[in-house]
């Protein structure tokens, strides 16, 4: 049965106690510590009353001092949606657990995020760059600059 945001929120609090819930007008949003992130995702997908089986989109945001991974998940049976976030503080070598074994589409979204942000995903089947060639920088980082190719207006 479709769970509204607040009932969904209680369910999440039972699952991962120290998640923070930033305000979001549309969907339930929660930031999960990356320690137990992978096992929490597995829980989201398999527990019978949640069944988040469709990963809409997976992306990253560069907040200059830390990265924020954003996962939009929804369930095709119950039609409720949740926005999952993981904070990555390490700037030089950003790493996060992969979810490609839970949602197959994440394998390619993660390769794209690696290509454009440089965030490595642990245990990813084949983490190669998708669009750019290997020696190129990571363009979507805020501190990216490339005078030779980019004319900035």
């Amino acid at each position: 049965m479709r769970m509204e945001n607040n009932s969904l929120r209680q369910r999440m609090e039972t699952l991962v106690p120290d998640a923070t819930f930033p305000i979001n007008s549309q969907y339930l949003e929660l930031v999960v510590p990356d320690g137990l992130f992978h096992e929490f995702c597995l829980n989201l997908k398999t527990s019978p009353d949640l069944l988040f089986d469709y990963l809409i989109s997976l992306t990253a945001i560069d907040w200059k001092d830390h990265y924020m991974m954003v996962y939009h998940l929804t369930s095709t049976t119950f039609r409720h949606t949740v926005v999952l976030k993981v904070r990555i503080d390490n700037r030089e070598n950003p790493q996060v657990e992969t979810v490609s074994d839970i949602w197959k589409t994440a394998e390619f979204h993660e390769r794209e995020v690696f290509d454009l942000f440089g965030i490595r995903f642990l245990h990813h089947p084949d983490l190669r760059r998708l669009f750019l060639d290997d020696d190129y920088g990571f363009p979507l980082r805020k501190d990216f600059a490339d005078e030779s190719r980019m004319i900035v207006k």
Partner: protein
Amino acid sequence: MEYEDFKDNETLELLKKSGGNILLSTIDNIINWGRSNSIWPLTFATSCCGIEMMAAGAPRHDFARFGVEVYRASPRQADVIVVAGTIVHKMAPVLKRLYEQMPDPKYVIAMGACAISGGPFYYNSYSVVRGADQVIPVDVYIPGCPPRPEALLYGIMQLQRKIKSEHPMGNGKDQIDPDADAETQAKNK
């Protein structure tokens, strides 16, 4: 476009003037007539201009009327490569190799703002080549984003005129570049 002003506007005068004795020999005329009236394009569409190129090949704006009969899939049988769409740094060597694998005489039409100068992606894009002429020599530029099929037809007509003023047998003078300085013109004469 009426046939009269297609026949002689100022660019054709420029071509005539720059061609030295424009009086082409009959062989030149025959060869140019054959080449200009059957230009086969290569199916090379990277993005949106490709759809307008397909529309130009479709029943309404059918450019088979101008001799551009059929899209050839391989460069070995194509005469003109219509660069329709954005050229990206990863695609530039591919375009270069395709251009080199085309048999002579070969021509290039840069269709759309992206192929002319990078178009809407000129600023702030780290991976767009600003214009196909940085990769291969371009004969005709067709502005527009995407240009209408009629614009592509007009571009092909311009290419046909350009072919008609060539000297394949080389017995005309070398092309005197009108705005080159006097000294090189004298040398050419």
